[in-house]
């Protein structure tokens, strides 16, 4: 009887070996299984269901607003797509935020990472799901816009038919890229901040406030005026939209801003996430 004992209670060698011999080693968790679980997680909580529902309602509402309140000359596929895309651009990054930051806010990270201790695989699964959501959401958006265009065409009569389908494929692909960048910004913020509300506010600041701040700064500071397009991501992202493809310089600007706002912070954030203590 002592309170100084530091010698470990040693197991008899036999019990140790039988324990190990009995061990049936399972194979590693397949990546596809992790992706499946992460997909399920994006739709199984009240908050994620609200976001999905809100996105659907906003997209359908956007069509209804065009049909109900805008003049019939504007009823084109492009108009519908624009109106549907605007709420999506603000909304779908929230799915990435909830998927990543929600693990910390709700502390489910404890279970997630004890079931899958190789955290990088969970992060990769979440990234794959986020990318999948961009593709699926945009496919639905194109479908909805097309449906609305058909409805509008029927309502407006034959005379407008020639201008209804006014968005070339390249422009639609750039819209998908636009959404992917938006999703990536949300994902990055969630990885770096690991806090749902902070990441959501951060995203809205970058998407809505940053461009104005940047142009304000550019108007008063000469040194920043030339640099602004190379460092401010939202404007660079908007160059993807519209009928004209971005110029080579605009593509390069998108590259530098993505490097600055996504690649760099995401790399540092993931490295930190892999090591941080989960409480």
């Amino acid at each position, binding site marked *: 009887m002592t309170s100084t004992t530091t010698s470990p209670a040693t*197991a008899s060698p036999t019990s140790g070996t039988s324990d190990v011999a009995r061990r049936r080693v399972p194979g590693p968790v397949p990546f596809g299984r992790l992706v499946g679980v992460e997909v399920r997680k994006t739709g199984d909580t009240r908050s994620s269901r609200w976001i999905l529902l809100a996105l659907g309602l906003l997209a359908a509402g956007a069509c209804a607003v065009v049909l109900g309140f805008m003049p019939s000359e504007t009823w084109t596929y492009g108009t519908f797509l624009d109106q549907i895309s605007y709420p999506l651009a603000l909304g779908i990054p929230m799915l990435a935020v909830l998927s990543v930051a929600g693990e910390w806010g709700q502390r489910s990270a404890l279970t997630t990472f004890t079931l899958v201790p190789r955290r990088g695989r969970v992060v990769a699964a979440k990234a794959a799901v986020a990318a999948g959501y961009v593709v699926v959401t945009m496919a639905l958006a194109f479908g909805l816009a097309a449906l609305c265009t058909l409805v509008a065409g029927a309502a407006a009569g034959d005379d407008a038919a020639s201008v209804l389908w006014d968005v070339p494929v390249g422009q639609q692909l750039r819209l998908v890229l636009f959404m992917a960048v938006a999703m990536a910004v949300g994902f990055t913020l969630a990885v770096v901040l690991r806090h749902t509300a902070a990441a959501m506010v951060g995203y809205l600041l970058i998407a809505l406030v940053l461009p104005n701040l940047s142009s304000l700064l550019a108007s008063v500071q000469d040194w920043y005026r030339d640099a602004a397009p190379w460092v401010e991501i939202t404007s660079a992202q908007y160059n993807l939209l519209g009928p004209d493809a971005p110029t080579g310089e605009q593509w390069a600007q998108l590259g530098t801003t993505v490097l600055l706002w996504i690649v760099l912070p995401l790399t540092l954030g993931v490295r930190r996430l892999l090591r941080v203590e989960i409480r």
Partner: protein
Amino acid sequence: MITIDALTKRYGDFAAVDDVSFTARPGRVTGFLGPNGAGKSTTLRVLTGLATPTSGTATVLGHRFADLPDPGHEVGVLLDASAQHGGRTGRETLVLAQRTMGLPPTRVDDMLDLVGLTRAEAARRVRDYSLGMRQRLGIATALLGDPQVLVLDEPANGLDPAGIRWMRDLLRTFADDGGTVLLSSHLLAEIEAIADDIVVIGGGRIVASGASEELLSGTGTLVRADDAAVLAAALTDAGHQATRTDDVVLTDAALTDAGHVAFRAGIPVTELRAADGAGLEEMFLELTATTQRDATGAAPAPTGAAA
């Protein structure tokens, strides 16, 4: 089998876990006892790969937890029953774990039955669960993959007496079937009731470990004296083992021998009696008092030889 070897976890200058070593063996329930803030949870977080150690190792079934390919099948973990997504239903929480581990869906209902959560309760959101229900759900998650090892941090928190009894029986059966159970608690009575082996931690250091019967029934003598340090030294010089915790010395010397040693050393004794298992309780109380008084949680300076 869980092996913690010379594990240290520092936060800046503060050592939350300081050179901790112990083993939890198959077929036995190992109780990890210590006051709040003693380093129990930190040790368990390092063990389960949620925190990285500053030095030392922690292995489960001979492997670092992070190296287990699909740990849910080998180690059931419940570190914090309140750390579950409040927006999910209890059933959904289990379904996610079941899918991650690639188990048949029927396993979810089996576990709900095992931990005594009804279908109606499982359909409710975890946010609306009592702590006791969360503990049951957490246990269900831990047992889902039919593991050989269980790691549970304060699993009795929030359970009513019947629930605590249920938990004890469950862990007893698990260990009797050859499983390894490591559970922590800050309540001595709880550990006494269930553990086969006890590891006591205070201020980040292991202060006692061994089989429960040994630690609890502890033969020997308890001597209380103002000059306890001198008394402990005198007992050691006389060839006895002696351990001091503040003004209490526990020794393997017989009552009369201890009295004689104290008399010869000229130390007034304020209490002299058979230890009768008081040792662990005394030590634990002192440990708790120390950490409550002293935020740095310095371990009581032990003297004397190891068991």
